[in-house]
């Protein structure tokens, strides 16, 4: 036990791990870049080609790249978290094995650099934790297996064996065994039920991605298949939807409207919440309760008047380009977010405000320098929820687009386009489900990525809300 826990190996591990992270990050970027490159290089198909049975699209390369990116990105995130949070005493032989397995995964992901670095790091970890390297570790494993094998062979002679135990012991042992089986059975049942429920929840997502990657013929099958081979994945569906059906433009429109209205929402709600939480003006509580009461009124009641109002403002012109104002400005504030932020601001002790006032700090400076940094996570939550809300906005944008006199298709937002676009085949007889579902997937997948990445912040907003994202 003399040589273990040498600082030297720890430092080596740290340094190499940094290189591993860098190599992984570069690999992820490369996967994505090649994927995008391949996607751009797909020749834009016609609808006739997509319907044609003989049309062949080989999606092997893109599928492989997509799967690589899907595996490598979470690994990178987990690894970087581990790298910055790992404490010295957590690094043991098991962690060495972990690193080795990850090295094998890197090899499978055609990333030899990080694989080699990880194998080297396994050596460092083993040296640090146990004082010896690969060979000794393999020998130890061999010994362990041998011991187990011996014990299994000699189980009749072992003192635990029932043959030499008293009747009482045998009885107890049997009881313990049945109890263990019962507990195991119960937990298997529990996991099974939860797994079935999870499958029920996940099924639409799986079916969406699967259908989006199928050919037209496959979607018309009365016996749909549950898998698509890598080389049969029709990435060309996405190409058609993005380029020929103008979903690229709709995504741009949605992002434009979403980003601007979110910025507006954050500014107005932060100011309003500050006034409601810190400035003690006359009629504050009355005004606030009036605002809260408006939350109960259904949105349809507002829409009835608002679509006349925006027309009177001249935002529904024949050129149409002002229609984005009509989509943005009514949603630049939100009573619910004011309420949510005010709750957070109220938790900040008032003594900070008094201290700032004594030091001659103006209110605006106090808001920007003190309150926003403290309430930063909540503001971030509001930003995400607002962006997601405008990504999913449907009723109002559809009304606005339908009010335009002509050429209103270029002002659709993404949900409106999903609702209005025609996915019929060239003869106009059958619905091209693969294209329709590909468009749906195009709308849903960014949301899923945002959700997975920022789950913590989104769920924080749920506890207080009775509304959906």
């Amino acid at each position: 036990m003399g040589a273990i826990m040498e600082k030297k190996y720890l430092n080596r591990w740290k340094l190499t791990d940094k290189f591993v992270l860098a190599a992984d990050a570069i690999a992820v970027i490369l996967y994505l870049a090649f994927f995008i490159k391949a996607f751009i290089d797909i020749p834009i198909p016609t609808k006739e080609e997509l319907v044609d049975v003989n049309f062949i699209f080989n999606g092997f390369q893109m599928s492989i790249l997509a799967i690589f990116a899907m595996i490598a990105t979470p690994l990178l995130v987990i690894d970087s978290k581990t790298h910055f949070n790992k404490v010295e005493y957590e690094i043991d032989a098991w962690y060495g094995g972990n690193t080795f397995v990850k090295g094998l995964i890197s090899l499978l992901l055609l990333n030899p650099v990080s694989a080699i670095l990880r194998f080297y790091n396994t050596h460092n970890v083993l040296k640090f934790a146990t004082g010896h390297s690969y060979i000794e570790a393999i020998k130890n494993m061999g010994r362990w297996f041998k011991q187990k094998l011996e014990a299994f062979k000699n189980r009749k002679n072992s003192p635990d064996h029932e043959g030499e135990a008293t009747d009482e012991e045998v009885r107890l042992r049997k009881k313990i065994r049945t109890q263990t089986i019962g507990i195991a059975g119960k937990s298997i049942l529990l996991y099974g039920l939860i797994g079935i429920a999870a499958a029920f929840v996940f099924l639409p997502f799986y079916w969406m991605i699967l259908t989006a990657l199928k050919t037209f013929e496959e979607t018309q099958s009365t016996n749909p298949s549950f898998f698509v081979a890598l080389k049969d994945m029709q990435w060309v569906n996405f190409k058609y939807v993005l380029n020929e059906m103008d979903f690229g433009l709709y995504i741009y429109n949605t992002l434009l409207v979403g980003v601007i209205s979110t910025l507006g929402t954050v500014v107005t709600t932060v100011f309003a919440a500050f006034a409601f939480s810190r400035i003690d003006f006359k009629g504050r509580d009355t005004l606030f309760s009036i605002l809260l009461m408006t939350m109960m009124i259904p949105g349809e009641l507002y829409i009835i008047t608002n679509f006349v109002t925006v027309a009177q403002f001249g935002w529904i012109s024949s050129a149409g380009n002002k229609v984005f104002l009509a989509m943005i400005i009514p949603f630049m504030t939100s009573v619910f977010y004011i309420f949510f932020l005010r709750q957070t601001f109220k938790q900040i002790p008032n003594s900070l405000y008094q201290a700032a006032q004594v030091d001659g700090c103006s209110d605006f400076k106090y808001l920007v320098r003190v309150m926003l940094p403290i309430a930063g996570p909540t503001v971030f939550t509001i930003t995400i929820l607002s962006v997601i809300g405008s990504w999913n906005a449907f009723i109002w944008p559809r009304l606005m687009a339908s009010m335009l006199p002509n050429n209103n298709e270029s002002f659709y937002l993404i949900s409106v386009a999903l609702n209005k676009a025609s996915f019929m085949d060239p003869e106009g007889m059958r619905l091209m489900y693969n294209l329709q579902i590909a468009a749906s997937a195009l709308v849903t997948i960014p949301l899923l990525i945002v959700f997975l990445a920022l789950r913590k912040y989104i769920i924080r907003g749920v506890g207080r809300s009775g509304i959906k994202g």
Partner: protein
Amino acid sequence: MMFKKITRNIKSFFSKVNWSTRNVYLTVKRAIGGVFRKFWSIVTQEEKRIERNRMKLDFVLKYLNLDGKDIDIQLDLDIAEIRKDLVEKKKALSVTYKKDKNQSVLNELNTVSRVIKYLPDDNRTINRKGDRKVETNKFIKAMIYLSPALILLAVFTFWPIINTLRLLIYVGYTESDGSIQGYTIFGNFIKVISQRGFIRPSAGTFSSALINTLLMAFISVPISIVVALLIAAGLNSIKGLKGFFQTIFFLPYVTNTIAIALVFKFMFNENFGLINTMLGWIGIDKVNWLSTNANYWAVMGVMVIYSVWDSLAFKIMVFLSAIQGIDKQYYQAADIDATPKSKVFRKITVPLISPMIFYIMVTSIIGALKVYSSVITLINEAGEIRGATYKMKTIVMYIYEYLNTRAPGNLSLAAASSVVLFGIILLFTLVQMQASKKRVHY
């Protein structure tokens, strides 16, 4: 060494630059401030005002025979007392003057009134005025911060509420030229309520918009609450893979309604759909879910399954956090008594989070009453199944139908139906508020 020296030099250079910039900034600020102050004093004629105030004070002091004495009128005299005396004196003088119209008495009276007028404020008045000023300043400041939100809310929230009340009393209102054909009080409500298909069932069927919506709400909400509770309790009791399952159950939370409803529509397709294929495995014939001549309850089933799936994530999240908030002592006590799991769930978990369950139930029912986007995606714009006698419309669909057909008076009808919806929502909210006052767990 070299490197350190260079960095030090760079740092000192930048700090010098910073210092001199700050000096320049402060000088400019002071100069501009001074100019503004000067300008303001010219505009408000500050010097003249000060002079006038001094003259007024002199006049008062002369009358009080304190002229030339070195006193501070604010501190050394009780101004409230003096004012009281002077007012009494003025009353007496005016009585005298009314009796015998004497010119000297009139002069005296005028002098006294002027002194009262010129008398500086006593401390209480000063305080009161100061308080009012602070109050006003605070109010102005608050309004500056609130104005962006309040202006938007006034235009797009408060005005619609007022306008809805206005629209309700119009007959035949046209929004393009604002012409109306008359006034009514309940006419629009009666028209909406008596229309076939809204509250009354249409001919040859039992379904109406209200019945459809209520059925959807009252079937899907209890199912989703029970399922969400069971899943939340299950998630709470497992250890391994908890994060994984949580993530999967929370996934539907952020989805786009239209996109997922399209996927559901494909899954429930009669010929190519996943659901019918899976039913085929267990030997059930193909069900006509949404196509021509579909059964009412089949369509309702799809709606219910969609809304259960859609609302599950939110409910699981809320219930899971509620269950995690329960005091562990109850469970430990149950453990000691070897209470079975199902009994623990029925007798501890559910009763302790029952206020939360009730709150979620009411808010979900309110949300389910407003269902629109999913229905028009799953069926169609008009909620019509081809070949069926019934129409799968919802309350909100009626509102938008009135909006989209621009006949005179339709806006008023839309307003009336939205107020009906609001009335139903208000009913549920009041029930919830009444129930939450009691806060009974067991």
